[in-house]
């Protein structure tokens, strides 16, 4: 089971790349805990200090494009981001997020409806997203069963350890 998600929105645009999520110069810090303070540094220097656990990222097209660096979804998860909702995701980011147990949700319609600091309620398994402010309910793409099982196990390592 994946718990229902309820969190405040941080909205970004199209083509948010992995260098924006966590710039190269911080990738070789020994731990993700040390890296996470630099999350989104080129876009919003205060992001890491103001985001709250449970908050949700909303992105446009091609979220997470660029590098295969798993540090990108890892720093988001380490800051407490509970899900990323985007119009589309870059392939490797999407896969990396599933592998570390960070829900990534495809939904085109919600983007235009929500603003920063709105609250979303997300049911990952059913594929539905509700905007608390507008009351609108949006349908999101659900994951193939194999991929959902990895997410339910908290990520690929949990999935492998279950086997």
């Amino acid at each position, binding site marked *: 089971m994946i718990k229902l998600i309820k969190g405040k929105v941080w909205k970004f645009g199209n083509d948010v790349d992995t260098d924006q999520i966590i710039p190269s110069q911080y990738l070789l810090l020994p731990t993700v805990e040390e890296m996470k303070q630099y999350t989104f540094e080129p876009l919003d220097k205060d992001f890491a200090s103001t985001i709250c656990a449970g908050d949700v990222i909303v992105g446009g097209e*091609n979220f997470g494009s660029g590098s295969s660096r798993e540090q990108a979804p890892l720093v988001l998860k380490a800051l407490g981001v509970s899900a990323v909702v985007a119009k589309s995701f870059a392939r490797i980011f999407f896969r990396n997020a599933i*592998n570390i147990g960070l829900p990534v949700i495809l939904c085109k319609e919600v983007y235009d409806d929500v603003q920063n600091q709105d609250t979303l309620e997300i049911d990952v398994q059913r594929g539905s997203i509700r905007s608390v402010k507008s009351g609108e309910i949006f349908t999101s793409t659900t994951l193939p069963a194999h991929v959902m099982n990895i997410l339910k196990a908290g990520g690929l390592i949990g999935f492998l350890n279950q086997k």
Partner: protein
Amino acid sequence: MGMTIGEKILARASGKDVVKPGEIITAKVDLCMSNDGTTHLNIDIFENQLKAEKVYNPDKVVFIVDHNVPSESAKTAEVHKKMRIFAQKHQIPFYEGTGVCHQIMIEDFVVPGQLIIAADSHTCSYGGLGAFGTGVGCTDFTSVMHTGEIWLMVPETLKFIIEGKFKPGVYARDLILKIIGDIGANGANYKIMEFGGPAVKDFTIDDRVVLCNMAVEAGAKSGLIAPDETTIEYVTSKGRQDMHLFTSDEDAVYEKIYYYNLDELEPMIAIPHCVDDVVPIKEISEVKINQGFIGSCNNGRIEELRAAAEILRGNKVDPYMKLLISPASKAIYLQALSEGLIDIFVESGAMVLNPNCSVCWGSCQGVIGEGEVLLSTGTRNFKGRAGHPNSSIYLASAATVAASALTGKITDPRGAVQ
């Protein structure tokens, strides 16, 4: 119904006769590679989360230190040390300071028909030799290093049919920039980009790698070119034999087919801050540059160095900018030395760096300051990737960078090429 090259490789790797797009398979991996960009995390996952003791087969794993070479800080040195100790303990082939990981893989390991995964997005480069390479993160990599297998969804394939011949001053680099500009930074998201058509038989291995390497910049899972005599000659010259020479069937199904004619292609440039913001260089005027860079897994090979040397020979780099050149591997560096290219570079005023990822990855050498402009043969022009968040990167061919280094501003190389 026939299959594409990519589908045939995934069918072989998963022990099936036929695979179809959308199908999820479990595939045996022929090789996996990791570099110092993430290996410290891989080792943590392997030892502390998986609590694994053995890699599935050390002969199928490669570790390459290429991102921060030589280490620029004590923290980076610790990462390299951790990698070195782990590789030695598990008897994994280990390279340090001998070049960019993908070039080393192509020179020493890749064989047509293989399935190769690596913890670096430009793993799609191996399609230049007819191998299915795809980039993954550290959890996937570590899982493969432990089990030898990976789950994959079979992607749709886009076909790019190329005809004509490159005109002087126009290169494979311009073609791939043009294609990415046309289809967009996610135009091939999750798909295979297969390059074919009558022009491909004339393409050198360097050209083929340039095309496939950048497939990920259009979001692709892999880039692929059918192996032919050129491929076989290259691979056998390296002493490798066991290859699967897959080509796409006549009735293979493509999601979409695109046509390109090289006779109409001109030098292209990607402008800040997205790889798909591509325009012909003739549309750019009076953009002053502070630094040029020739190198990276896309454009640091011998043919690019020769093209740059032809332009730089007997000329001087503009005194108010820097030109940095990094051959993609030790073998290429030695070749460039024997051909006298390094002499030309140094005499022109360029700085020649050791073979590594260098300026392209923007963390160790040649970073730029606030408001500065870099013209690069690297793979990405993301905001701030080469240094200060308020700096800019343009992407172009090695010839364009060389021609621009002489004038100090973005310059069409056709005026400088015979």
